C-alpha cells in the first residue's frame, strides 16, 4: 500500500484540525469584509455578498494613532532589550565570574513573576519619574522586564559557540569588548533576528502594562482594540476589522519569518 494511502486517516484528522484552527481567522476575515447591513448573528459563517472595505476604513481611522504608538514603543524596546540581552548573555556564558550562575538565576526568576505583583510600585515609580502615560515609560518597562528573557535566549545561543574561539581571540590580546565585536557579534546575527522577532511579537501583543501605564491618547493598539470591542456602540464588523488591523504586523512577521519565531520559542523555553 502506498504510504500516502496508508496515512489517509492521519491526513483526515490533520485537515479537520486545520479547519478548526483556521476558523477563528475565517470569522474575523469574512465579518470584517461585510458592511454593517449584512452583519447578522445568523449569517456569521457565510461569505460576504460583496467585498466591502467600509469596516476597515472605520477601524483604521479609529486605531491608526494607536498603531503608531505601538510602533514607537515596540521598536526601541525590542532593539535595546536585544542588545542588552546579547551582552549579558555573552558575559554570563563566556566570561563567567564567581557568582555568575547565581546572578543568572536571579535574573531568570524575574521572568516568571506575575507582573501584577510589581504593578503598584511600578506605576508609582514611573509616575515620580514623570513617565506615567508616556510611550517612553512603556519602553523602559518592556526593556527591564524583557531582560531576563533576552539574556536567557542569548545565553542559550552563546553556549553553542565553542570556547576555543573565545580563547583564540584572548590569545591575540583581545579583551571583553573586542572579542564580542570581532568574534561573537558576527556569529549572532541569526540570534538577533530570533530574539528581535520574539520581543517584537511579545511587546506588540502585551496588554497589562499597556493598559495600566498609559491613558487615553497614548494607548498602544491592543488597548485601543479592547476599548473598541468593549464598547456596545461599535458594530462587530468594525471590531473584527480592527482586530485584523492590529494584528497585521505580527501576522506579517509570522508569515515571512515563522521559522525564526519558532526558533525563538524553543530558545526561550527553560531547558537549562
Amino acid at each position, binding site marked *: 500500500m502506498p*504510504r500516502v494511502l496508508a*496515512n489517509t486517516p*492521519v*491526513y483526515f*484528522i*490533520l485537515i479537520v*484540525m486545520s479547519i*478548526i*484552527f483556521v476558523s*477563528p481567522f475565517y*470569522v*474575523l476575515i469574512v465579518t470584517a469584509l461585510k458592511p454593517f447591513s449584512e452583519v447578522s*448573528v*445568523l449569517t*456569521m459563517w457565510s461569505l460576504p455578498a460583496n467585498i466591502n472595505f467600509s469596516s476597515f476604513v472605520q477601524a483604521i481611522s479609529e486605531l491608526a494613532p494607536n498603531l503608531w504608538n505601538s510602533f514607537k514603543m515596540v521598536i526601541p524596546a525590542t532593539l535595546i532589550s536585544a542588545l542588552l540581552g546579547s551582552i*549579558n548573555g555573552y*558575559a*554570563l556564558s563566556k566570561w*563567567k*565570574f564567581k557568582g*555568575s550562575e547565581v546572578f543568572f*538565576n536571579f535574573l*531568570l*526568576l*524575574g521572568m*516568571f513573576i*506575575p507582573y*501584577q*505583583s*510589581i504593578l*503598584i*510600585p511600578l506605576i508609582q515609580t514611573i509616575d515620580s519619574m514623570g513617565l506615567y502615560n508616556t510611550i517612553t515609560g512603556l519602553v523602559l518597562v518592556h526593556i*527591564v522586564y524583557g531582560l*531576563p528573557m533576552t*539574556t536567557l535566549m542569548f545565553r542559550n545561543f552563546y553556549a553553542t559557540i565553542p570556547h576555543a574561539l573565545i580563547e583564540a581571540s584572548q590569545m591575540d590580546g583581545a*579583551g*571583553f*569588548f573586542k572579542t564580542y565585536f570581532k568574534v561573537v557579534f558576527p556569529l549572532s546575527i541569526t540570534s538577533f533576528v530570533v530574539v528581535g522577532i520574539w520581543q517584537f511579537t511579545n511587546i506588540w*501583543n502585551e*496588554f*497589562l502594562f499597556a493598559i*495600566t501605564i498609559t491613558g487615553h491618547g497614548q494607548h498602544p493598539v*491592543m488597548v485601543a*482594540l*479592547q476599548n473598541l470591542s*468593549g464598547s456596545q456602540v461599535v458594530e462587530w464588523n468594525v*471590531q*473584527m476589522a480592527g*482586530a*485584523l488591523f492590529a*494584528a497585521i504586523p*505580527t*501576522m506579517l512577521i*509570522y508569515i515571512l519569518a*515563522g521559522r525564526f519565531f*519558532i526558533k525563538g*520559542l524553543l530558545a526561550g523555553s*527553560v*531547558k*537549562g
Partner: protein
Amino acid sequence: MNDHTDKKGVYERFKSFMVRNISLLVVLPSIIFVSVFVYVFIGWTGLVSFSNWNSIAPDLSFNGLQNYIQLFQSFRFQSDIRNMIFFSLLFILGVTLMGQFLAILLEQNIRGKWLFRNIFMFPMAMSFVVTGVAWRWIFNPESGVNIFLQKFGVSPGWYTDTTILPGWSLFKIEFGLPIGLIAVLIAAIWQMTGFSLAMYMAGLSGIPQEVREAALMDGASKWKTYTKVILPQLKPITYGIVLMMLQISLKIFDLVYTMTGSGPNFVTDMPAIYMYEATFKSNFYAEGAAISIVMLFMVMVFVIPYMFRRKEDA
C-alpha cells in the same frame, strides 16, 4: 603612604580592576535594575498588602492580615481560586495532549508537514486581545458555533452558563467546574497548542531513528513504541511545557478580560481580573496588592522547585 597615591598608580589600579571584573561590571546595571524592578517592588507590594491603602490617597498604616482575611472570605475570590484550579488543570492537560497528538501525527511522513505545523502555530503569534474578540463571537450563544449545534437540537449557553459541575457547596461558593469556563478553555488551548507542538516536534526529532526502528524490530506495535520508547524520552519536555503553561494560566488576564470578563456570577473571573479591577477601577490598592501576592505565591510554589531541579540536571 607609598607610591600608589600618585595619579598614575590610582589610574592603573582602577584600570586593572575594570579589566579583571569587566564581565561583572557589564552585567551589573541589569542586575541592579532587575533587583529594584522585581525584588524591591515585590517587597513594596507586600507592604501595601498589609496596609490600609484602600482609597486614592496612599495610606501605608499597618492593617495586619485584614486584607488577606477579607479576600479569602469573599465570594468573588473563592470563585477565582476555583476557576483558576479548573482552568489551569484542563488548560495544561489540553495543551500537552493536543500538542503531543499533533506532533505524533506530523511525524508520520506527512506531506505538507510544515504547512500543517505553521497553521497550528499561527495563533501563537496573535495577541490574546485579538483572538478574544473573535472567540467572543464564536461562542456567542445566539451565533457562532451554536448555528451548527442548533441543527442537532443543542444550544449551549457557553460563557453565559452559570452551572457549576458538580457544585458541592464549599465555604461561600459551589465547587466544581464552571461550565462557562469551557468556552475560555477552548480559546486558550487553541492559542497555546502551538507551543507544545513545537516543543514536542523538536523533542521527537531529537530521538534517533534507530531507537524507534529497534523498537519496531522487536515486534513492538506502533502504539507500544510510542508509549514505551518515545513517551518516556519526552518526559523532560513535558515538564517544561507544563511549567510554562502553568505560569501562563495562573496569570491569565487579557484573553479572559477581552472574551468574557468576569462573567455572570463570576463564573469566568480570574485573580488577575479581580486584581486589575480592584486596583485600577476601584482604588482598592491594598486589596489589589494582596491578590497579587497570592498570585505570586501560586506561581513561585511551582517555579522555584523547577529551577532547583534544573540546576541539579545541569
